[in-house]
């Protein structure tokens, strides 16, 4: 396998600030998406407002940013990532351009997917981000295949495979983990455990101790970490990625976090106690990281600067997206398939 060089680690404070920056950018991106989606989501039997800029189901990862930031900090551009319906954070952290991402959410021709995918299918293959997926757990076999491919081609790439706590009850979870294990594939499984599957508390739907126990049942090394503590995620991911790159085969990271928002942006999530949400808000990953930065002696002004830069970046993204052209109707017929092109009726 070709040798891959890793970025030299900067100081702990600088590294944490980098992680904070990623989180701040994700937060700003999703806040803006939420704002511009008001009225645009046709869910729970309502009808979508035609004039909203972001339309359709919008799944926000607000409060879960540390998982994306901490894991992706250890991925190279040539590495792959598969995601879920809740994929903005992963996409951004893997290196996608926020303007192109916002254009996609706005359904514009200049979006990452040229307006064909929207939030739920956001992807940027140019940075190895192989796509958000509308089918729970469907990214797992694809991730495993990409890892198998990397191994066969000897490209040295690894794959980060993100999925939720609800996904571990679907068959492809078992099949994919087993596959990665027997072929000793370079894949990091990341279970983003935000405790909910849509309106359902996942715990009651899960037999046994959960994600990590199942991985261990297949002899895949697994670790459970505080997914709101970006340093915990960062450290665990660093070690796991190192083991994977050294040929150690699949590793499993179980990150405990919390879904602060509803399942989709318009879900008021009345099925849970406000107290539970309030408690969760106390361990907001950005605030935790900011406090830690403070403790490490990083000036508050530098953090504010990062926040401001993130907001400014997203303002620009919004402006770009607002001005961007719609896809032509004719584009509906492109990229279907080569064979029989034109025979679409």
């Amino acid at each position: 396998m070709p040798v891959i060089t890793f970025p030299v680690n900067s100081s702990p404070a600088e590294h944490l600030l980098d992680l904070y920056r990623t989180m701040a950018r994700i937060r700003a991106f999703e806040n803006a998406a939420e704002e511009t989606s008001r009225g645009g989501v046709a869910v729970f039997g309502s009808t979508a407002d035609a004039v909203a800029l972001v339309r359709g189901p919008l799944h926000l990862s607000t409060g879960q940013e540390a998982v994306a930031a901490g894991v992706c900090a250890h991925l190279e551009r040539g590495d792959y990532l598969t995601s879920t319906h809740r994929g903005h954070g992963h996409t951004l952290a893997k290196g996608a351009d926020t303007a192109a991402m916002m254009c996609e959410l706005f359904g514009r021709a200049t979006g990452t997917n040229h307006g064909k995918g929207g939030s739920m299918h956001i992807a940027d293959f140019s940075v190895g981000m192989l796509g958000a997926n509308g089918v729970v757990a469907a990214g797992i076999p694809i991730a495993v295949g990409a890892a198998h491919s990397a191994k066969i081609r000897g490209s040295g790439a690894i794959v980060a495979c993100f999925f939720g706590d609800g996904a571990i009850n679907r068959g492809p979870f078992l099949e994919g983990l087993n596959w990665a294990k027997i072929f000793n594939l370079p894949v990091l499984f990341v279970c983003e455990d935000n405790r909910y599957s849509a309106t359902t508390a996942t715990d009651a739907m899960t037999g046994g101790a959960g994600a990590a126990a199942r991985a261990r049942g297949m002899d895949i090394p697994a670790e459970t970490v505080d997914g709101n503590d970006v340093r915990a995620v960062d450290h665990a991911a660093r070690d796991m990625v190192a083991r994977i790159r050294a040929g150690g085969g699949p590793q499993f990271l179980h990150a405990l976090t919390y879904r602060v928002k509803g399942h989709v942006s318009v879900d008021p999530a009345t099925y849970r106690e406000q107290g539970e949400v309030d408690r969760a808000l106390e361990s907001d990953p950005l605030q935790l990281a900011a406090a830690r930065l403070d403790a490490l002696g990083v000036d508050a002004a530098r953090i504010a600067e990062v926040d401001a830069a993130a907001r400014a970046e997203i303002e620009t993204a919004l402006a770009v997206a607002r001005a961007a052209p719609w896809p032509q109707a004719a584009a509906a017929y492109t990229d279907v398939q080569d064979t029989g092109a034109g025979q679409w009726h």
Partner: protein
Amino acid sequence: MALISYAQAACQALAAAMRADPRVLALGEDVGRGGIFGQYKGLQQEFGAARIIDTPISEATIMGAAVGMALTGLRPVVEMRVADFALCAIDEIVNQAAKNRYMFGGQGRVPLVARLPIGIWSASAAQHSQSLEAWFAHIPGLVVVAPATPADNHALLAAAIACDDPVIYMEHKELWALQGEPPAPDPAVLGKARVVRAGADLTLVTWSKLVHTAVEAAGRAAQHGIAVEVIDLRTIWPWDRDLVLDSAARTGRLLVAHEAVQAGGFGAEIAATVAEELGIPVRRVGAPRIPVGYARTLEDVARISAERLLEELTTFVQRDAQRRPAA
């Protein structure tokens, strides 16, 4: 009388069936909180968690377990959220539910209703927008139903629950909020279509949400002097051949319209049958063979509008009248 929504109508039909028959229950993701479309609203409160069963995200086992339940004396209603996710449970639907009775020589019955909502769901793109009724019509053992109105979503769901066969029950993802006349208490008869509007110039067969589009197009066609007979098929399998053939024989022209992809859609079956039986001119309107895109400009290409239908049927009648002025 107060109007009722498509979602409420189904909810009421299910509640009534559950009150009348302790063997009826429902299982699926999020049903305990009323389902994400409100189609199970209040039911867990009334019937408890043992009959309105919240499940893990395990489509294959939701469907497979329902087969096991149905074989052993229960009558499960299976929530699949959207037809697209039921693609994770196709072995269970096709190899297990549909074939069980036959394969085992009639030893068991599989009286289940699998709810697989079809149709484009605004801005939800390629994996939440499929209409796959043609697939299930092709599979021996299955009944396929697609209600267009609140009243029918009551009457047909009641009939589906009462049916001893596995029924693929396809509500439309964009009809949940549709308000309509309150339903009659009696279940419908599966396999019977309904003439929504009578007309002498052309038979327009359709189902699900397009029924409303067809009625609109027919109204506008009337203004151009074209009398369109609109038939709501309601049950896709067994489809009401007699009613369709009767109507088509009278009007001399058949147009089938559906939201599903035209190529290989169920419209082909109807058009082919009418062509075989009557030899009259037939035409189909369906979606182009493309996935549904997210941007509205793209999504619109995959939708069948009333304008499109009007244009198709006008051209059809005019060309055909020219060709056969005596007809």
